[in-house]
C-alpha cells in the first residue's frame, strides 16, 4: 500500500521543470532536437558573426546572422541579395551584396553604380561615396559583389567578381 501511495505522489516542481513528467520522453525530445539542430546549423542555416565594417550601416560589426544555404536551390542569385562568399572553404566567408549579374558591364562614377552604362539606384547605400571604376565586363558564371559601406577607401574595401560556386548562400536576416 505504502509503495503505491508514493508512486501516486506528484513529483517535485523542480524535477518537472528539469526533466519533465516523463524523463524518457524528455530524453528522446532532447536527442531529436540535438540531431535536428546539428543538421540545420551545419548544413542549412550557417550561423555567422560579422566582423569589420564593410557592410555598415545595414549589417553592423559584431552582429550575428545566418547564411541560408538553400536560398538558391530553385533560382539563381539576384541583384541586391546579400550573400556569403567562401574563401577556400565554408568556415570563413565574406559578406557582400550582389550588384552585377553575369554578362553585365559594371562601373562606378562619382560613387554611383553603373550597370551597362546606366546609373543603378541603390537604396541600401546610406553613406557618401566617391568611387571611380572603369567599366568591367562580368563573365557568364560570375557576379560582382561589393559592400554597402561605400565611405571606405577604395583600396581598403574588398570587392570584385565572385564565381557562382563561391556563393554559399543568402543572408537570412
Amino acid at each position: 500500500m505504502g509503495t503505491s501511495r508514493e508512486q501516486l505522489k506528484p513529483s517535485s516542481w523542480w524535477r518537472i521543470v528539469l526533466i519533465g513528467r516523463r524523463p524518457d520522453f524528455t530524453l528522446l525530445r532532447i536527442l531529436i532536437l540535438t540531431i535536428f539542430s546539428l543538421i540545420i546549423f551545419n548544413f542549412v542555416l550557417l550561423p555567422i558573426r560579422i566582423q569589420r565594417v564593410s557592410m555598415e550601416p545595414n549589417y553592423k560589426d559584431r552582429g550575428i546572422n545566418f547564411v541560408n544555404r538553400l536560398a538558391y536551390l530553385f533560382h539563381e542569385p539576384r541583384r541586391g541579395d546579400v550573400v556569403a562568399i567562401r574563401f577556400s572553404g565554408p568556415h570563413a566567408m565574406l559578406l557582400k551584396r550582389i550588384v552585377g549579374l553575369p554578362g553585365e558591364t559594371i562601373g562606378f562614377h562619382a560613387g554611383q553604380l553603373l550597370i551597362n552604362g546606366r546609373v543603378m539606384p541603390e537604396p541600401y547605400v546610406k553613406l557618401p561615396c566617391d568611387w571611380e571604376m572603369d567599366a568591367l565586363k562580368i563573365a557568364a558564371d560570375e557576379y560582382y559583389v561589393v559592400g554597402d559601406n561605400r565611405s571606405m577607401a577604395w583600396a581598403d574595401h574588398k570587392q570584385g567578381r565572385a564565381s557562382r560556386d563561391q556563393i554559399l548562400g543568402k543572408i537570412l536576416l
Partner: protein
Amino acid sequence: MMRWFSRAVLAGVLAALGIWCWHTWFPSPEKAIRKRLKELAQLASFASNEAPVARLFNCEKLTTLFTSDVKIELDATGWQQTLSGHDQLFQAAMVVRQRFGGFSVDFIDIDITLGPERQSAITDLTAKGKMAGEKDLLVEELRFSLKKVKGMWLINRVETVKTLR
C-alpha cells in the same frame, strides 16, 4: 569456439595496431602536408613575451619548413610583401616578431591537390590570423606549393589568392 573467438579478437587488435603503426610511421602525403602546415602555423604564431633566444630559434626553425629557393608573394588588402630564400624569410620573421606584440595564426579549410607523381602538391587554404590586442581577425586565402625533398614536404611557394577578382 571460445578459443577461436579470442584468436579472432586478438588478430583484429593486431591488425588495427599494424594499420595505426603504418599510418603513423608512413603517413599519406595529405597527412604529412597537413602536419607540416600545422607546424608552420605554430611557428608563425608567437606570444608577446617570447624570449629573444626562443625568437631566434623559432625563426630559424621556421625557415627549415621551406625550400632554399622559396618565394613568398603576399598581397593582402593594403599590404604587399615579396620574399625570396631563407635569409629574407628569416629577417622578415624576426622583424615581425620584434615589431608586433604577439600574433596567432590558424589554417582552416585546407584543400590539397597532389601532383601526378606525388612528389609535389598545391594546397589552398584560409589563413586566420589575430594580432595581440586587436579585436578583428585577418583572413586571407593562400596557395602553398610544396615539394618532397629527401622524404620531407617543404614549402617552395606561397602566394595570396584573390577571393574576389
